[in-house]
């Protein structure tokens, strides 16, 4: 197996261009690549479209932020495709003020749209959202008397994901509930950058226990301060 390139968080941020569709792993920042986000914030990349479960925490009273929230505050996204923004008052403010386009998507639908994007499908049929605002503008197909929404596949330019361990060939093992959207996003983007806590020699991981095969991964970033 050929080794993947191991790069710095700053070099990784350099691979993200203004206007890119960026898929970001994590669920309320658990499983988000925090060093990659910090580098992307510093670089100030603009007009990106964010595809992520949520926009992490931004506390209106204390100003405390986690995960992607500082980039939201910096207005680095022109559009956000997310399932939940209840923990980030700034995302809600930008949405209500019409400053940033926010697409709210049911969580299971978003997961399947990304999976479809990565696995060569045009989209999926789901009963979720039938008869709700989510149905607006979408095709409804009836199969055996049950209604389904046609939800198109989503692909991205860059995936920024987080795993616990990579071997040098890019095979990944995730970490507890920090797995969430990460393995799905690894399949659906042109460039896949993974931030990891440790890098081991190729062959050191049990092939039966690998969550994401290295073929999906382009670059590895070792978490700052990791042993």
């Amino acid at each position: 197996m050929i080794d993947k390139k191991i790069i710095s968080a700053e070099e990784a941020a350099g691979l993200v261009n203004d206007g890119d569709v960026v898929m970001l792993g994590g669920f309320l920042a658990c499983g988000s690549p925090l060093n990659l986000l910090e580098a992307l914030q510093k670089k100030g990349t603009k007009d990106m479209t964010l595809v992520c479960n949520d926009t992490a925490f931004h506390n209106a009273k204390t100003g405390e932020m986690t995960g992607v929230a500082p980039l939201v505050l910096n207005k680095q996204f022109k559009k956000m495709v997310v399932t939940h923004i209840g923990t980030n008052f700034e995302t809600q403010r930008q949405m209500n003020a019409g400053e940033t386009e926010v697409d709210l998507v049911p969580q299971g639908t978003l997961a399947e749209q990304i999976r479809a994007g990565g696995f060569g499908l045009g989209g999926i049929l789901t009963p979720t959202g039938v008869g709700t605002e989510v149905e607006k503008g979408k095709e409804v197909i009836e199969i055996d008397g049950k209604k389904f929404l046609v939800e198109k596949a989503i692909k991205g330019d860059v995936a920024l994901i987080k795993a616990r361990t990579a071997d040098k060939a890019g095979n990944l093992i995730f970490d507890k509930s920090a797995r969430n959207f990460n393995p799905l996003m690894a399949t659906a983007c042109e460039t896949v950058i993974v931030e990891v806590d440790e890098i081991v020699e190729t062959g050191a991981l049990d092939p039966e226990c690998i969550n994401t095969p290295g073929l999906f991964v382009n670059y590895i970033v070792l978490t700052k301060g990791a042993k």
Partner: protein
Amino acid sequence: MEYKPNKEVIVKRIAKFFKDGDLVNLGIGLPTLVGNYIPDDVHINLQSENGFVGLGPAPEKGKEDSMLTNAGGSPVTLLAGGAYFDSAVSFGIIRGGHVDYTVLGVLQVDQNGNLANYMIPGKMIPGMGGAMDLTIGAKKVIAATTHFERNGDSKLKRNCTLPLTAGNQVDYVVTDLGFFEIKDGKFILKEYFAPYSVDYILNNTDVDIVVPEDCKEVTL
């Protein structure tokens, strides 16, 4: 009689629904509290939609693991026999009908089983997160809510006016006044909770309520 909101009554009653082996997903907020009242002799399996089954209690102070949280972002533990998976598997479990019960919070719930719990346009837009999939996918949907809003309006409606999370999916509604089943476009009052009376519920809730003969008073 004066109404005093009592969330404990709601979660205590819901905790009695389950039997050994049930796979249950508890929503964020009030529904999460149900987990504290499951009887000791009933063993259910809790799913956390961010990617695991075998959800355990909060860890001791100092033993939190930032890589293991519930769907609200709070540190939790994993019980022996638990398993982690990605979000596609997690929602496959949910949409695929493998979850026996989901307990969800309420902005409005109506007599046709419609649930609104994810946004108040122009005011509060938290988003649906996993709620639309859970409402559609779980075998039984329990709506958990205080009976009245702060302004005194009942949260039980003839027709929801807020954007729906899902249509015709709610099976049971448990408030701090009673336990209702939704059937044939009506609320069926199965139990009323002391100190409130059937008349109190009927007089203060502008929906179609059927009171069957076996409706009983319950003290929780």
